[in-house]
């Protein structure tokens, strides 16, 4: 899966905006939105929030967790624990990137937030590499990967699953030609 596709999925998450226009309810295929009144908060999917923001038609109200104090706590917790801690949003990385890129003027202390999320991400990736390594070494066949987000899974997916497939093939010693080329996807 392309990282852009993970971002595409993240864009379905809801965020709150304060609209600068008025508009009745919109009946989208995926559900109703609005009504929009100037200054009043309303929930919309991220893809719409970014579009409206680019057209300077709204002000973004950052998600509750996108806050220096909260993110510091999350980062420290992540560094303290050996396992993956639950993240405030299943798309925390993508949302941080999207919202900070397009609406950093509406997010207080944007640069610090960027750094904190990146630190948390780095800690988690280091854990992910460690646990992938032990998974492969101990020749496990099942792992629980709770609390891993889609973007995190996606960064390690191709490498990990292909490595496991190759090792399995070497171990089970399949005859060439039978299914030895089935993995060059």
């Amino acid at each position, binding site marked *: 899966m392309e990282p852009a596709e993970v971002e595409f999925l993240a864009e379905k998450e809801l965020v709150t905006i304060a609209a600068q226009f008025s*508009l009745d309810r919109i009946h989208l295929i*995926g559900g109703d939105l609005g009504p929009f009144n100037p200054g009043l908060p309303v929930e919309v999917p991220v893809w719409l929030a970014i579009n409206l923001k680019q057209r300077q038609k709204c002000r973004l109200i950052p998600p509750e967790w996108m806050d220096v104090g909260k993110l510091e706590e999350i980062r420290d917790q992540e560094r303290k624990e050996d396992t993956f801690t639950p993240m405030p949003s299943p798309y925390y990385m993508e949302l941080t990137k999207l919202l900070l890129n397009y609406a950093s003027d509406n997010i207080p202390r944007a640069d610090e937030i960027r750094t904190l999320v990146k630190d948390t991400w780095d800690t988690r990736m280091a854990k992910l590499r460690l646990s992938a390594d032990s998974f492969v070494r101990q020749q*496990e066949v099942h*792992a629980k990967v709770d609390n891993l987000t889609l973007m995190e899974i996606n960064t390690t997916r191709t490498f990990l*699953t292909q490595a496991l497939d190759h090792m*399995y093939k070497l171990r089970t010693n399949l005859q060439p030609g039978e299914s030895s*080329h089935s993995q060059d996807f």
Partner: protein
Amino acid sequence: MAAAGGDSNGDSDSEEMLLTPAQLIHSLEQAWLNEKFAPELLESKPEIIECVVEQLDHMEANLKRAKKGDLKVSVHHMEIERIRYVLSSYLRCRLVKIEKFFPHILEKEKSRAEGEPSVLSPEEFAFAKEYMANTEAYLKNVALKHMPPNLQKMSLLKSVPKPNLDSFVFLRVLEPQENILVEPETDEQREYAISLEEGSQHLIRYRTVAPLVASGAVQLI
């Protein structure tokens, strides 16, 4: 008693009759992700595709009547583009798999029992057959007919690789399952059973969970 989840069949499929449009889009997205990550071609979902296309056509017809430059219209257009992307990515993904595994898919189709649902939609079936015929004709014209007569036969079934059902997949559990047997990787290890709790995420071989993917009890991620 606990249901043996490991061999549950996809016989709950006929439940998805009355969906709201939002649920419909959601099931399209689920089908898209499952198809993207499953090593083999999954059962086709003609009813979902049909309904989504209908929704899109309906919405576009409505938008033609609306006045241009309206903010509302542009929001609708954006949503349509997003749904259309998922739909075409899903169909494209299926075509890639058909091109990759066509002899095996057609073979399975041939041995399919009466009444059992096909993994191919009628259009995909036509495509697969044509692709097979063209590949055979091409190989024949380019190489085989120049070979000595005893070497002019080749079996696509034997020369095209099969989908690797032993590959690993990531999944999220939608409906809890118990007693899923996990086969050991090496001879020294023992087979053991795991339970899949709702909402939990796992990394496991596709073969172990293939029936659960088909029945919708787990979502590949």
